[in-house]
């Protein structure tokens, strides 16, 4: 069977899920199945089909499983968001359309994605500017103490970090393709640790400094962990030196600890992470209320969950919000509440399968730049999942990044479709018969 036919069959689970999900939410609300819900489902499936045909025409050899996995996640997301707020679901559907348009544009413009290497300095500067934007007066937008948004007056709040992550990965893949040999060649071994020559170790220090800068700028451990983790992954694949990663992580840990105790907002997050059920922290503004309730929501879900539409988001009869930001940061808690441990595992495993296909693409790729690019994009994607789900499940301190393709949010949807487009481009080239 050809790759594209496998992709078409792979879309069946997503279509079943979106249909069953909408029906489930409707039945819970004790409304009859209305035409509107079927229309939503039909439009969503139509979009998936159109995208499939587009991939069939432009990237016939690309990995057949990535897009169906993304469709599955997106259908999951749109059902959850619909359940939380039907208005948001309509907006999300619009973002979905825009995301698919950018997906197509990326594929058409960057058909030979290796030409991106030529613009690597433009890309890295643009990415850094994007990252700094939220700290600029008038445009910057602070949510819960972290600087992650930019307000486009009258339009929407836009999260530049979602795009910056792609730009930084492109830059790094390109830069390390050139310097990886040099970094290894001049290295000396000292006490069993490979120490590269200082002039080549410089970039690692720069990355570390950069991650700390992100932490200072954005007040956000999670985002900086996501960026830095992806950088280390590319560095490790490029050089094959585990010592870089170990030294890099140690430096990050020290820096994060120091800044975690000195930036009040980050410190609060760490405190909430350590003692979410402490009553004083729970009741303090900016305390552990959100994290504690995320955990309570998961506990309410149990093994099988309470069912679609059954999670308690507000206290009935009042407007008291029990779970702040259910459609963005906390969506994993809502999923666990409604679908239980099994539903949550299904989501995690879907992401894991996507990551597996991403790394498989990197393995199959024939040139270093493609390998590093696919590794970096997959790593940053997987780490984003780890950072937000890890935050909600209290593996690490909670940070406000989105759950890719599931959380509500235009920037996230659009940026991740661009990421998907780049991965499929690499994959198509890698799998093309020689």
């Amino acid at each position, binding site marked *: 069977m050809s790759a594209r036919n496998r992709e078409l069959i792979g879309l069946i689970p997503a279509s079943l899920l979106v249909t069953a999900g909408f029906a489930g939410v409707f039945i819970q609300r004790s409304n009859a199945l209305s035409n509107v819900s079927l229309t939503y489902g039909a439009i969503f499936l139509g979009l998936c089909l159109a995208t499939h045909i587009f991939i069939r025409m432009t990237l016939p050899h690309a990995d057949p499983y990535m897009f169906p996995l993304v469709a599955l996640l997106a259908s999951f997301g749109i059902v959850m968001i619909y359940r939380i707020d039907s208005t948001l679901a309509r907006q999300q559907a619009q973002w979905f359309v825009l995301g698919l348009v950018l997906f197509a544009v990326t594929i058409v413009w960057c058909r030979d994605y290796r030409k991106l290497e030529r613009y690597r300095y433009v890309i890295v500067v643009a990415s850094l500017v994007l990252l700094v934007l939220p700290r600029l007066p008038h445009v910057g937008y602070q949510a819960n103490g972290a600087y992650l948004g930019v307000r486009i007056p009258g339009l929407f709040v836009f999260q530049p970090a979602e795009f910056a992550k792609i730009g930084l990965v492109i830059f790094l893949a390109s830069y390390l393709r050139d310097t990886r040999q040099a970094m290894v060649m001049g290295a000396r071994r000292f006490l069993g640790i490979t120490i590269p020559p200082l002039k080549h170790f410089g970039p690692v220090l720069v990355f570390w400094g950069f991650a700390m800068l992100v932490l200072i700028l954005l007040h956000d451990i999670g985002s900086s962990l996501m960026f830095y983790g992806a950088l280390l*992954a590319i560095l490790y694949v490029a050089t094959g030196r585990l010592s870089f990663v170990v030294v890099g992580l140690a430096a990050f840990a020290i820096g994060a600890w120091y800044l975690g105790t000195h930036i009040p907002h980050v410190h609060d997050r760490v405190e909430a992470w350590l003692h979410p059920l402490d009553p004083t922290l729970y009741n303090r503004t900016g305390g552990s209320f959100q994290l504690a309730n995320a955990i309570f929501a998961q506990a309410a879900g149990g093994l099988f969950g309470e069912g679609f539409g059954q999670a308690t988001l507000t*206290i009935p009869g009042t407007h008291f919000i029990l779970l702040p930001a259910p459609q963005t940061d906390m969506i994993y808690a809502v999923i666990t509440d409604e679908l*239980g441990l099994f539903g949550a595992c299904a989501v995690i495993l879907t992401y894991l399968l996507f990551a597996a296909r991403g790394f498989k693409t990197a393995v199959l790729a024939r040139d270093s730049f493609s390998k590093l690019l696919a590794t970096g994009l997959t790593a940053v994607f997987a780490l984003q999942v780890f950072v937000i789900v890890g935050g909600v*499940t209290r593996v690490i301190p909670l940070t406000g990044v989105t759950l890719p393709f599931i959380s509500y949010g235009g920037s996230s949807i659009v940026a991740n479709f661009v990421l998907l487009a780049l991965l499929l481009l690499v994959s198509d080239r890698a799998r093309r018969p020689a």
Partner: protein
Amino acid sequence: MNTQITRVFGLIVVLFALLILWTTRWTVIDAKSLRNNSLNDRTLVQELRIKRGQILADDGTVLARSVRQAGDTWARTYPTGPKFAQVIGYSLPRTGQAAGLELSRGEELRGVQTGLSSVFGPLTSNRVGDDVETSLDPKAQQVAIQGLAGRAGSVVALNPKTGSVYVMVANPGYDNNHPDAPGTTQFNRSTQANYPPGSTFKIVTATAAIDSGKYTPNSVVNGDSPKLISGVPLANDGNKSWGDIDLTTALTYSVNTVWAQVAESVGRATMTKYMKRFGFYSSPPLDYPPDEIRASDVHSLVTGRPLPPASPNEDIGRIGIGQGGLQVTPLQMALVAAAVANHGVLMVPHFMTKAVNQDGQTVETVHPTVWHTVMQPSTAAEITQMMKRVVEEGTGTPAQLGNVSVAGKTGTASVGPTGSNLTQPWFIGFAPVNDPKVVVAVTIERTQGGFGGTVAAPIAKNVIQTLLAEGK
């Protein structure tokens, strides 16, 4: 490079495994304690969403029911209000307050969880609880309330064979629709009071004397007044000297000096043994919240603190006539009469008779169970005959009930400072004598010289009459 890529993927697998592990921790391993965490408002919301079952009297009268509120939640209303307030209690999940049967039978009212749903968590949020059917009798309850006529006191009536409670009135009380209304009290005198039992306690002394084999109803004791008891003179009512009389006569006319001597002669150890068998020194195993029921016991007259059972500091002679620091609940005194009425076997008292689910299926039945075997049946028969004489010709004649023979014992405990005329009248008894179906304990607080026979016995008579007329 491919080896490194595989290793990076391996790391991602490990990280994602951590996520699943931690999700498992919250959804399964720690789920129970998290659901019960006091900060967790979800538990409260789920509580509000449960349609608790009704609480019903034995004639089907609704004593508590759920009414629908905004946001798919439920609240409780109590159609009979103050009449059964102390027994039924209330349930206010929003503030976490609950009392009475609403608390003690909360599990049934919230719906008994099957094993499956308690393991896998609530499968449905629209939980409906089970109806709790009780043995409470609204008519007799009303008669008891009218009998007290606003005076502080308590009436308890129950079935001696099964332990089913028919009546429990405690005055003053409150309206469980407004539990915190000022000027009302949730204190349940029937189960929480610390009253001196007066001469009603002579039933316990007589049981210890006869069942231990030291005395018979015909044993003769000198009933002159006063007598030195624990070195302090004790007088009979009106300082009357009765000469040598048998125990039946001494009970019929409630001769203090005789019973104080009997108690001293039986001794602390035996007296305490029988008190424990009657249920003293432990909370009655009623289906009622432990915070709202106390054990009847002996307190030091000097310090006011509880004395350990059979303490050498006890004045066992005066305890034998229901003074000497005895602090009892009306429920305990009803249980004393119940043990005699049921041939010496004391049954576990209970309100609930069964729990019925929404499909009309009985999901739980309360079967009569023995709490203690207090005395031999022969002793019980002898005590019954003695108590019958009390009502026939002694201090308890106002409890006479036409063609139904009643057995009983009056009590008139002195309360307040020495020399004051304040008394606490009591009556405990049962009927019919040959096949006891109803046991009653009645007491009224702080009357001006009222006697158990004249003040408490008529109330007991009316309650017994009402219950027997209903075919109990």
